[in-house]
């Protein structure tokens, strides 16, 4: 077991992640620190926020109640984002290491995960500011200990859920429905599970040694995971994946080589884990509109612009920034087979447009909030098709890192480079820049017309831009082929 952890540490420390440029590492470290600070600050002011919403309740009681929903939300987040603890287990199967040891190791490996640290970042400031000054230490620490146990239980439940329902949309929907029902019952004061939860938590903290009940819960969850993992030790090897989407998109084939290339790329997205997860996450991005299109914001053009941009270009941006890298592992196919390179790039452009059209049509429903939104989203849609898509395509020709399609997109920086990161920001900053120019010249009312107009101009001229991109890519052919060949 000890040896296994040593190997794990070596795997991490020798990962190509650390061999990325120092600048990128700094950027990532900075982003992580920002997130940590954000959580700490939120935790520190949690009491004031809660007092404002529930002025008559005991603050600790309210906080504990909120924890109930926090754990539900956390479980959902974990389900979507946290990876299953898998291990390159094959080399060990032949060695005299007991299967049981491997399973224990796999489960324990999931414990030192950022997901198990985040809750404490949120809770500790509250703990120090509110709980310890008012309550005896023994109570405070039993409370904290119980929460630690629940974090672990959540961690193990997530493993169970992920093992049973990966990539089936139904359980996610079911989960959301059940949560909604629980929230409604709570709100309408029929049965309040959050109150029960809070009472149990506080009772257990008050009474010495009852926290051991929570330890039992952890052990139970662990045991269950252990049994299931031990039983399914061999599944997932050799059986192969089920075929998906074999007949879909056939209508695109009538558009010749370009259409065929698009069909293949759609299959790439739907049949491989990383792009598929990205796709699902982007669907959630589309809900962003509910946050942005609030009454107070409807007169703020800047916010509306950002909202329309995220909602209509979300998936296109997320997927488009890695164009060509997605195909890195088989890029030679496109280099030796008989087709016009121009068609290849055109297929990419049309695909990005297709994403935009789909996102545009789906999110047009926001017009029900205010008809103005339809106008703004239409302008941004034209802009995205005519400008953003072409810029993405151009900058993507700098990509030369291959992407492993089978891995989860979360905390996965494979294929990310500083240049590419900056390009993505740059692409976003262009409409912001245009906005500022219009604002300070007093022409704000023409801003969205202008965006739409340059969008249309870009669409009309797309062939010229594609020709430029083609020329660039021909020049970079060997560099890309060489880069994609490197294993990382």
């Amino acid at each position: 077991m000890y040896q296994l952890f040593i190997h794990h540490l070596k795997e991490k420390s020798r990962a190509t992640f650390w061999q990325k440029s120092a600048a990128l590492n700094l950027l990532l470290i900075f982003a992580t620190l920002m997130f940590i600070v954000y959580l700490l600050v939120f935790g520190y002011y949690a009491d004031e926020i809660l007092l404002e919403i529930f002025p008559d309740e005991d603050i600790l009681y309210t906080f504990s109640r909120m924890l109930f929903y926090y754990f539900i939300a956390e479980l959902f987040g974990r389900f979507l984002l946290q990876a299953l603890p898998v291990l390159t287990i094959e080399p060990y199967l032949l060695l005299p290491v007991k299967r049981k040891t491997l399973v224990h190791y796999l489960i324990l490996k999931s414990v030192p995960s950022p997901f198990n640290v985040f809750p404490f970042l949120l809770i500790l400031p509250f703990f120090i500011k509110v709980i310890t000054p008012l309550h005896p230490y023994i109570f405070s620490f039993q409370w904290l200990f119980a929460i630690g146990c629940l974090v672990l239980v959540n961690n193990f439940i997530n493993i169970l859920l992920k093992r049973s329902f990966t990539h089936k949309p139904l359980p996610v929907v079911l989960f959301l429905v059940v949560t909604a029902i629980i929230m409604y019952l709570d709100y309408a004061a029929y049965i309040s599970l959050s109150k029960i939860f809070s009472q149990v938590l506080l009772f257990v903290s008050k009474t010495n040694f009852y926290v051991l009940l929570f330890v039992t819960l952890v052990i139970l969850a662990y045991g269950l995971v252990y049994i299931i993992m031990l039983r399914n030790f061999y599944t997932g090897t050799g059986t192969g994946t089920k075929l998906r989407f074999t007949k879909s998109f056939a209508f695109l084939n009538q558009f010749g080589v370009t259409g065929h290339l698009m069909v293949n790329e759609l299959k790439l997205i739907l049949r491989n884990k990383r792009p598929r997860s990205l796709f699902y996450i982007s669907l959630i991005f589309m809900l962003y509109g509910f946050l942005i299109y609030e009454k107070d914001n409807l007169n703020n053009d800047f916010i509306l612009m950002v909202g329309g941009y995220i909602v209509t270009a979300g998936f296109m941006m997320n997927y488009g920034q890695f164009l060509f890298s997605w195909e890195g592992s088989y890029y030679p196919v496109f280099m030796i087979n008989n087709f016009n390179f121009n068609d290849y790039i055109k297929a990419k452009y049309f695909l990005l447009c297709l994403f935009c059209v789909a996102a545009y049509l789906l999110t047009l429903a926001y017009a029900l909030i205010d008809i103005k939104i339809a106008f703004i989203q239409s302008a941004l849609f034209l802009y995205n098709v005519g400008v953003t898509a072409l810029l993405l395509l151009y900058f993507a020709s700098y990509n030369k890192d291959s992407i492993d399609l089978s891995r989860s997109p979360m905390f996965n920086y494979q294929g990310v480079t500083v240049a590419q990161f900056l390009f993505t920001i740059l692409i976003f900053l262009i409409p912001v820049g245009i906005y500022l120019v219009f604002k300070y010249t007093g022409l704000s009312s023409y801003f969205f017309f202008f965006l739409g107009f340059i969008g249309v101009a870009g669409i009309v001229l797309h062939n010229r831009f594609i020709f430029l991109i083609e020329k660039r890519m021909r020049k970079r052919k060997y560099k890309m082929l060489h880069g994609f060949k490197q294993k990382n």
Partner: protein
Amino acid sequence: MKYYKNVVLNVESMQINPGEIVGLIGNNGAGKTTMLSLFLDLIKPAEGYVKIKDKNVARDETWKTYTGAYLNERFLIPFLTPFEFLTYIGSLHGKNKADVESFLEANHAFFTEDISGKYIRDLSTGNKQKTGILGTFLSDPELIILDEPFSALDPSSQAWLKNKLSTLHAEGKTLIVSSHDLKHVTDICKRILLIEKGKIVMDLNVNAETLPKLEEYFMVKQ
């Protein structure tokens, strides 16, 4: 042509004539794959050039219309089924689904696995290789380039492939095949290039003495 820093491949000049069937042999790291990649314009020579039908492969792409090549797994699209992949390659050469189906029918002794039941990424190494090799024959190309096509094949498939390559040769196609199996290459090839440390050390016309000669050459190497 020369390729890169610590020179991997250094060939003053060589020519392969239309209709020839050429075997490329040499130990690991000799430069076989590098040479084939240069033919296909996948890497850029530090000096010199490769011409097919008098046209520089790096400047003129017409070679793609009449060349079929399979070097390794990177020439397959992993998330397609073999059938989807072959239809796709076929479509690039103006073949429709029915053409591909009759092609598979004709070669079904080679690919016995269910052709559309699994993704390529879930196939065994041997079946992946078969898919790639079939892909090169599909467009009925004039020039065929294969890197170690026998390596992961079962004995029946090896025999089938040898037969197939000989037939293609008889039809007048040009074939370049690398291999570690001296017996196979001497059986089917009429000309053999032996590469060592990036240089062509032997250029032989195959006859009865070639196999013993090569065997002796590689024995001494130990």
